[in-house]
């Protein structure tokens, strides 16, 4: 009391008493208003549930929503629709197309277009729009690769011909991923004001914050159950906070955060082909360098016995349990779980004894008793590079080094930046992450023609039978035939044969989903960004 009085006196002295009170009143009022707005947003969440969906799954396209520049390159472009699409098992089905055929020489793809599709501005989708989209994307220099296209031509009112420079079975993935844009409404401003024939239309895009989309009631396909969908572009911490406070219905979170309790939400760990694996320098070390002077080859990993032994000695389940907290699967190849995966090539279980026998037979013996084998004066040791900023890769690299020590192979795990890794990846083992719905990736990783190009085939792997199988897969005109060739290639480069890579794990993509939301059957998700979980968003439903 006394203290308060003294303060009052002093405030009085400096003429602040009245003003202070007024300020307190203003501050209280402001706080009350703030609380009021907080309440009102809270009400909006529960009240709007049946018609509005809020997703915090990242993946903002900063450059906008123009498919010819790469929007929707992972499929399902939301605002636009594609000629073909993939179902839950990644089988190809029709979308805008009613059917397609490939000429025997593989150069001409003839696609029939449905006639009942309209753009969101009311104009019909014509073969001319399809041809325009493909021709534009082929030359736009964006993030979708349509360079194999020579020319797209509308031949009649419901048919378009896509003429290629060379046969390419994987071109079907462009039919799956390239959203069709209207020729009459496509220009410089299109990316921020997209017009398409997809299930949703853009209502508002607050860049860097959120994307609000509205149901397209003229969409020819299944009607989404939600009038509006809001994509919130928050980073991990904010997504976690938003999910916890009930502001979003679906939140994508890294597996490290997946163990947190989240009332009212269910954890969906979706299988993916988002893999991590080790590429080995395949060439012997002869002092050879590439055009940029970067060394090629390694005396240890160029021995097939070493590569096979490593593949046998790694306990992949232990990696999943220890490094991924159980949110993943052991990986045995680059395309696990995809339609062109050959399960017979998988390594089953872990067998360090067999690995040791393989090394013994190949002449790798620990003669000096230091725990590391050697052969002809060469110690069985190599460096394993990983991206230093990625703690998951670091964990995997260190665990692999530990697992190989007992079989007498010394691995030095070393974190580096991509810039450094790119100069050393032909002579050191590197931990990479890949995984795509497009077999082109497998082609790029294993074909000798891709050795040393970009990040493809960094170890300069080359095998004539693999090359032949991959080339045949590319040139195939029938999907089943292509798949047979893709599987054959795996049998040659797989862990029991050339063992060009040691694949470690496939991550699970972890999402927290409102327990009342049915998101249907999930696809095996690819590496990278985009919104793979939304592939079937038109079928999502509230269940309570």
């Amino acid at each position, binding site marked *: 009391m006394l203290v308060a009085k003294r303060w009052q006196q002093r405030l009085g002295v400096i*003429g602040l008493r009245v003003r202070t009170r007024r300020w307190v009143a203003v501050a209280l009022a402001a706080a009350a208003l703030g609380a009021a*707005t*907080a309440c009102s*947003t809270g009400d909006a969440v529960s009240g709007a549930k049946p018609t509005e969906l*809020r997703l915090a799954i990242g993946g903002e396209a*900063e450059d906008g929503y123009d498919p010819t520049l790469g929007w929707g390159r992972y499929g399902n472009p939301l605002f636009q629709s594609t000629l073909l699409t993939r179902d839950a098992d990644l089988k190809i089905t029709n979308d805008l197309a009613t059917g397609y055929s490939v000429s025997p020489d593989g150069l001409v793809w003839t696609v029939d277009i449905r006639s009942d599709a309209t753009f969101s501005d009311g104009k019909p989708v014509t073969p001319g729009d399809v041809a325009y989209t493909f021709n534009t994307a082929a030359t736009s220099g964006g993030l979708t690769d349509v360079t194999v296209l020579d020319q797209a031509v509308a031949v009649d009112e419901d048919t378009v011909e896509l003429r290629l420079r060379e046969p390419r079975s994987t071109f079907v993935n462009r039919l799956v991923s390239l959203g069709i844009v209207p020729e009459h409404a496509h220009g410089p401003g299109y990316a921020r004001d997209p017009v398409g024939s997809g299930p949703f239309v853009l209502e508002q895009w607050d860049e860097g914050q959120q994307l609000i989309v509205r149901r397209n009631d003229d969409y020819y396909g299944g009607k989404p159950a939600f009038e509006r969908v809001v994509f919130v572009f928050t980073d991990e911490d*904010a997504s976690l906070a938003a999910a916890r406070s009930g502001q979003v219905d679906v939140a994508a979170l890294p597996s490290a955060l997946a163990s947190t309790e989240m009332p009212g939400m269910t954890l969906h760990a979706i299988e993916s082909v988002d893999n991590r694996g080790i590429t080995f320098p395949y060439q012997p070390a002869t002092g050879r360098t590439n055009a940029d002077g970067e060394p090629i080859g390694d005396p240890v990993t160029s021995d097939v016995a070493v590569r096979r032994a490593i593949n046998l000695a790694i306990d992949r389940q232990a990696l999943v349990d220890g490094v991924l907290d159980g949110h993943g699967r052991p990986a045995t190849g680059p395309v696990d779980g995809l339609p062109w995966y050959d399960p017979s090539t998988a390594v089953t279980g872990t067998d360090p004894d067999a690995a040791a026998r393989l090394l013994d037979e190949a002449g790798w013996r620990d003669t000096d008793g230091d725990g590391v084998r050697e052969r002809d004066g060469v110690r069985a040791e190599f460096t394993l590079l990983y991206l230093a900023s990625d703690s998951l890769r670091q964990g995997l690299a260190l665990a692999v080094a530990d697992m190989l020590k007992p079989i007498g192979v010394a691995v030095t795990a070393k974190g580096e930046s991509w810039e450094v890794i790119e100069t050393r990846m032909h002579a050191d083992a590197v931990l990479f992450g890949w995984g795509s719905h497009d077999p082109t990736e497998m082609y790029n990783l294993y074909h000798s023609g891709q050795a040393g*190009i970009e990040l493809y085939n960094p170890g300069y792997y080359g095998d004539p039978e693999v090359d032949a199988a991959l080339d045949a897969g590319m040139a195939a005109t029938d999907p089943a035939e292509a798949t047979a060739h893709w599987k054959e290639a795996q049998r040659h480069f797989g862990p029991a044969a050339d063992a060009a890579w040691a694949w470690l794990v496939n991550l699970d993509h972890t999402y927290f989903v409102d327990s009342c939301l049915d998101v249907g059957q999930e696809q095996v998700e690819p590496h990278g*960004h985009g919104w793979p979980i939304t592939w079937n968003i038109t079928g999502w439903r509230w269940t309570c």
Partner: protein
Amino acid sequence: MLTEGVPAALRGFAGRLGRLVLLLVAVAVASFALMVNSPVDLVAAYVGADVASLGPEQRALIEERWGLNDPAHERFLAWLGNLVRGDFGFSATFNQPVLEVIGDKFLASLALMALAWLLSGVLGFGLGLLAGARQGRATDRVITWWAYTLASAPTFWVGLLLLYVFAVSLNWAPVCCAVPIGVPAADVTLLDRLHHLVLPAVTLSVVGIAPVVLHTRQAVIEALAGDHVAFARAQGERGFGLIRHRVVRNAAAPALLLQFSSLGELFGGSVLAEQVFSYPGLGAATTTAALNQDVPLLLGIALFTTVLVFTGNAIGDRVHAGVDPRAALADARRSR
């Protein structure tokens, strides 16, 4: 007197303008040289996770679209030529002209930076006055300790802390963004915007508050030890009146100078604060541009911030001279 004064002021202005142009050229050359010599592959940075799905032909297309095949000095001169004509180039990251990107994003940052700037100025000055006036007492010690704590706390850490306490635990503030989730732009009220602005602004004000507090405190202590204060005391002046009439003006000069010259740090802080709160301003755009190696946008932002900081300093000088005539005299003497 007057007729003499005008050309002098004009001359001063022209001189400043000349210096600004020189500074801009230097910043442009230096930034461009840094980016050209960066080991990061521009196309790889743009392509990101898509490396495996884009073939060499596509990369060649991208390089062609960006004009990367020309030698560096030609690219620089072409850019400079466009710049003189008012064309800042095209940002591939945002698929928009650079000026539009900067304009859009700066508008969002402006409210944030202005609020943080005012907060740190007013709070810092007030607390500095209080601490100086109560030198050595508990109030002073608490304020000084608090200022040192803030000075040594990284912005992003403060931001995360505030986010955790006020947004996650207490649920008082929104977790992200400048507008409420899922509300159409037309329905967003001023109150909504303020509600989303408070946490980032408080975080950002942390950058500038401590120096202002400490410098003001020092200036107050010095002024209080001055002869004119001793004289005023002898005449019976006490308490707030003494501070208001004899000290505030002396203490305001360094605070104002600091406040105006802190625009650079304010921008640096906004890069972090906006990142933490997913606030879509120029700071967040800078991070995105840097991660994607968006050279035209980064250069544009560098030039823009140069102008911002330069203007801040120039205004600071003028205001300083206005508050403290001795500074104007010193300036005049130096330029003679």
